């Protein structure tokens, strides 16, 4: 099952700073919602257990995330892959930065989900994913602004 999400957020911080934080696994590790056992592996990757809940369905996914600095300071990608609770997930997200304090982050995410969660259908999972992604990026924006 495939999901496609997109959106944008404004972050009140210079572009260079936003880019360097968003491509820093240590920074990312501090902003992940519902994460435990977070481990930074090296300058580009981290591991974490993420708790996902869709109504009464809970899944604990062991995820590995890798940052790709595609075109600094304007574009980067994050690839996350993992399994858990009878489901697998692979998400490729790309973000583009424009403007400078405020910096606009425009992002696109494509996810492929198999297993138990896939059976719930993309129309339902998209609703949940939109909520979760909004939380994630709101957290990231706040963390970037507070770290200045």
């Amino acid at each position, binding site marked *: 099952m495939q999901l496609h999400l997109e959106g944008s957020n404004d972050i009140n911080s210079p572009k260079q700073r936003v880019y360097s934080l968003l491509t820093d696994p240590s920074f990312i590790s501090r902003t992940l919602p519902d994460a435990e056992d977070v481990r930074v592996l090296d300058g580009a990757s981290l591991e974490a257990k993420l708790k996902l809940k869709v109504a009464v369905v809970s899944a604990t996914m062991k995820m590995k995330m890798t940052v790709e600095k595609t075109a600094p300071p304007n574009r980067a990608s994050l690839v996350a892959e993992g399994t858990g609770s009878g489901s697998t997930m692979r998400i490729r997200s790309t973000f583009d930065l424009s403007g400078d304090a405020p910096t606009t982050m425009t992002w696109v995410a494509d996810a492929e989900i198999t297993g138990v969660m*896939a059976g719930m259908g993309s*129309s339902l999972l998209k*609703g949940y994913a939109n909520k979760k992604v909004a939380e994630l990026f709101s957290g990231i924006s706040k963390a970037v602004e507070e770290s200045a």
Partner: protein
Amino acid sequence: MEPLFQSSVDEVGRLLGLAKDELEILEDADSAADELMVSEFEKYVERKYNPEIHGVLKRRNLMGVPIDAKYGGRGARQLVESLFMERMGQTGMGVITFADVHQCLGSLAIQDWGSEEQRSRYLPSAARGERIFAYGLTEPEAGSDPGSLKTSYVRDGSGYLLSGSKYLISNGSIATDMIVFARPSEGNGGPTAFILDTKEKGFSVDMRLEEKIGLFTSDTSMLTLDGAFVPKEDVLGLEGKGLSVAYSALLNGRIGIGSGCVGVMEDCLNQVKERATSRVQHGKEIAKHQLIQKQVAFIETSLEACRWLIYRAALKKDEYEKDPKDLGLRADADRLSAVAKYMSSRGAFESADRAVQCFGGFGYSILSPVAKHFLDSRVARIYEGTDEIMELKIASSVLGREFEAYR
């Protein structure tokens, strides 16, 4: 817009024409259906009524879709109301039941049969979502035969006192107002339709009926009337002629339910297509297995056939409403609404059954969207006119009234 709904809107627009304000209603319906997706799922799994249905429809100005614009509604003709219900049907019959009862059975009954004073008093607030209507016809001993209802009334000063039981009433425990049918406690007069304020002292909710096999997000209740007062200003239509009100409301309601069933088929097709093209068994996607393709072909064929039966019934009703004295048009609208409701409710249930089969083991869980449709759509073959009553109506419309089997 959701793609299958977009294709309906495009085709109807191209062949029959849709005005700008009508397209706006359908855009709002599309957004409302998206917005309801998550809460419908959560409440379904909890087996509870979903109050977000009212909240979202109110926020999106969709509580009075077929109500005349002069009373604050969106003024939609039946064809557009049907498209609205089609899109809402993709989220499930729980949403359809709420909307159909409030708009088609409740609000439209007042618009069609009420005095100007009643329309001005009730419809604007109903269209704003400040009122919720229920429709109190069915009783424990009067289902397919509403003429045998036992709820009675006596005159009392400036109004009437109603007493009896009403059963399997959708929106029953959340309604602010109810169209209630009762017969005179003495004499052989026919039933009368009343508009009852549910805050009246003699009205109570006996129990919420939560043991249904599906339709969990719809409120269904058993109600008691024990000397509930209705002022004479709230008789709907003529005293003793309540069954005319009842049957015309059911004509509205049946097209609404049938339209929702089309939406159910659309969602089943979407879910099956997504599942079948991604799930791999025996080294290939199950969509490449011929017996799965047979299910897909059935659902698509059923969907296309029922869509156009519904649109045809809607067009006939719109035609009749332009000339309400033409009894021939009324009879045609009645017949076509019965045909459309009969086929669509069966089509939805069959499609959902086949969709569950395509999902395999996961389809046997209420966490799966197709299981929800399977459980919920079964009621569409029962409420607002059982399959059997629809068959008898259709047959007698062909053979002639003298052959009516249920008189």
